[in-house]
């Protein structure tokens, strides 16, 4: 055993003696390695933050540039004049051509967008293929009635101030999923300032958790998606946990 240890010590000494004169060279090499690290870091950050979003989202224009301001001013019931609830309680969403024809059977002004709308859609009877910013994946069940009628939420809470827009925004379509960028949110880091900045499950859960904490009767969702403790809930609340385990998923995922 001792023989082996002696040999090992000898070898270490030899290596150190040969390296010493080249210390300067070593520093330079370290510098180069660092530069490469920085290039890699900066490059990938640039790819991740600047190039990736450009590749991920395609920019689409709405078929007709829609002016909400003009329309809201012309109707009596605000948003619900066009985005109404059907008799069975389901939400009509984006209006169909039949609704628009009531006023726009013929062009009412000289706006080229309106002329285009009448010419290409009203006259020919073609539905307008609107791009819906808030369209959720098919696995999501969302009831407008329970949120608007029961929960008394304002449209703005989720949809923002779209009713005050004079032009249709560019629709950024996720090339992979086919859904709008509005669902993930404009900010790719997932940061948000207002409630309408994102429409992911976490955003539903956040609001539900807040309401639950205030003592409201709402379905609590595992927020934020079951891998972090919920800040508003005491973990001892077994009642809530049962609720989550039993049926919370199937409220929104039918």
């Amino acid at each position: 055993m001792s023989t082996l240890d002696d040999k090992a010590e000898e070898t270490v000494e030899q290596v150190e003696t040969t390296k010493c004169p080249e210390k300067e060279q070593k520093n330079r090499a370290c510098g180069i390695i660092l530069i490469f690290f920085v290039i890699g870091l900066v490059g990938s950050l640039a790819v991740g933050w600047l190039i990736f979003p450009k590749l991920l989202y395609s920019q689409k224009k709405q078929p007709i540039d829609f002016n909400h301001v003009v329309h809201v001013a012309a109707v009596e019931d605000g948003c619900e004049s066009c985005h109404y609830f059907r008799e069975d309680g389901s939400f009509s969403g984006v209006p169909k051509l039949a609704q628009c024809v009531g006023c726009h059977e013929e062009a009412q002004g000289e706006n080229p967008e309106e002329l285009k709308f009448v010419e290409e859609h009203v006259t020919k009877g073609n539905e307008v293929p609107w791009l819906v910013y808030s369209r959720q994946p098919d696995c999501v069940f969302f009831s407008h009635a329970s949120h608007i009628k029961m929960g008394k939420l304002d449209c703005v809470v989720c949809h923002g101030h779209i009713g005050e827009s004079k032009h249709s925004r560019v629709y950024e379509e996720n090339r992979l999923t086919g859904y709008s960028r509005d669902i993930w949110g404009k900010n790719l880091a997932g940061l948000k300032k207002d409630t309408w900045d994102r429409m992911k499950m976490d955003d539903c859960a956040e609001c539900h958790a807040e309401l639950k904490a205030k003592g409201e009767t709402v379905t609590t969702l595992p927020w934020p998606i079951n891998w972090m403790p919920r800040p508003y809930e005491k973990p001892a609340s077994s009642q809530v946990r049962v609720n989550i385990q039993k049926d919370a998923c199937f409220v929104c995922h039918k």
Partner: protein
Amino acid sequence: MKVCRRSFLSLIIGGAAGTALSPLPLKLMDDSSIWSQAWPWTPVPEDGEVSHVGSICTLCPGGCGITVRKVNDRAIKIEGMKGHPVNNGGICVLGLSGLQLLYGPTRVKTPLKRVGARGEGRWEKISWDEAIAEVVKKLGGLREKGKSHTVACISGTDRGTVAQLLGRFLTVYGSPNFIRIPSIQDSYELTMHLMQGVQASAGFDVENADFVLSFGSGLIEGWGSPVRMIKANSKWKERGKVVQIESRLSNTAAKADKWVPINPGTEAALALAIANVIIQKSLYNADFVKNYSSGFEEFKQMVLNEFSPDDVSGITGVSASTIESLAKSFAGSSKPLAVCGRGQGETPGSLNEFMAVHTLNALVGNIDKKGGVWTVPDPDYIKWPEVEMDRIAANGMSKARIDGAGSKRYPDTRYLLDRLPNAINSGKEYPVEALFVAGANPVYTIPDSKAVKEAFNKVPFVVSFSSYMDETAVNSDLILPNHVFLERYEDVPTPVGLQKPIIGLSKPVVKPLFNTKHLGDVILLMAKAFGGQIAKAFPWDSYEVCLKETLGNKWDKLINDGFWADSNFRPAVWGGAFHTPSRKFEFVNKGKAESIKIEGDEKAYPLILMPYDSMRLASGFIGDPPFVIKTVEDTVLKGKEIVVEVNPKSARGFREGDQAILSTPKGSVKVRVHHFNGIMPGLVALPRGLGHTAYDEYLADKGVNFNELIGPVEDPVSGLNAAWGIRAKLTRA
């Protein structure tokens, strides 16, 4: 500057660190999961306004009410109609899959004219004007030559305005050959006619019966109105008993309170032996027998002499004590009901058997009583003026029917489709020059497929009105596709077996998808093209106008509720119920009830092949849609091979899953063997509803069509097909 391996590694590490600090990994992961959950090719119903349309399903004679859920213009789901007198919210697997018959690949999308050889499948698309002109030209030519009677029409039903228009067209054109698809309805109608003197259907008050004696009827396998029967079966579980007399442990037998295995084909003898016990022990309803029946004494003598339980026990294989206990329980129940008609009831069966079973109902006096057999008159809302026939038509109508129905030999039978192939092939009668087929698929459903195809080949002009490319459509010269049931108006009179007269209205749920036309409109157009008396018999502009006028004040109710029920209908009282010459119920004594002899020599064919039915196999003119064929078990269809059931005792060395050749005097097919202790030794059972050669890739070429292996056996009294099986053998493949 020297770039070494370490620099490269450093670049990678830097890249990894940067990537980790960017949103790329999390975002890509999230997007990939969404992408994989919503494959772009997964069909997802569009989002939109939901609506419901009430209608009637006409995929079988069950006549269930349906509610179709729509999103915008697309039908999304078929559900049972709540509150409908037949099915009250329930639906069967075929009805549930009805959308696949609307949107599926098997539709005929436009009128087609054959260009290749028969059955080759080469078609030329033609316009409706051309198609109708072609039919009128052909039929006009025959009429000019005085051959109008050589035109025949096979129809799925003879009730309702569409079938009546078709029959009316044939009459005014000059042909007596309107033929309805055979079923147990024929035998029940004839039984009612001979024993009660009425032209009516048999209705069964199954919901109120408390003891059901079933002679092989597949009560929960599609007999009668399938959903109604399954619901009734649930009621019997609570308060009632079911005894199933059958050679095979069917689902009905398995769910019954008692299963009585019987030598096949001896059911009539068992029924009469039960009658023997009832009479001998004076368990019958004395009031009914004494005051409202005729011929009882002769019947009594015949039954007492020839059908003692001991004698019958030897014939049927059912012990004398079982016969006695069955008789006692049956007669001892307050609302007993005896029914017959094997399986789903597609083969008319032996008239003797039907009358013997109906006799049991008469003995316990449950004719037109709660829980019994009711006389259901044919609906009388179709009141069109009598047709005025011209000379040619009158001449044609005076000719005998080609199928022999109404002839001296079979004077009381109305339709005998099973005799048609032989009549054409033998050439003894006149040749059939043109054949219409509507709401039926005779090339598939009529026994002895080989003879049926041969007969079809001898008919120079075959017109199919099928919506689907079924076996008959494939073997026709011209296809004039009807709208499917979800695209058309149609009245549906009292469904088979229902005890009260009702009318249902089939409504268009969606606009016709293709260039199809309502059969009613096609008949009107053909009549108009003929002109003269023929056109005069059809004064309506369109079928819809005709239907609306015919239904009169019932129309609004039908549109709103989907059905109309006669609230004033009550079962007839015994005093006025019977219209026989004696004005009483006739215990018809036809002498010793011989069992129907099946085809084949016992030595050459030691086994007996019998068909069986399942709710998962549609064996009528509609084939299984893809959803339904998916539900068929491995013990019925293994891959593309059909599986036959044999008792291990008579398997003769065939092990479970072995391949074998099943031969009958009519043909041989390749099968797989399944050992089943629920089938009597000496029998082989083969499922019906498989072996299609047409329709789509989901249904075609799977299994074997039972009708290829069996031929019809004429009932000596009615002429209807009474074959309940055929001799067979299994040999090594």
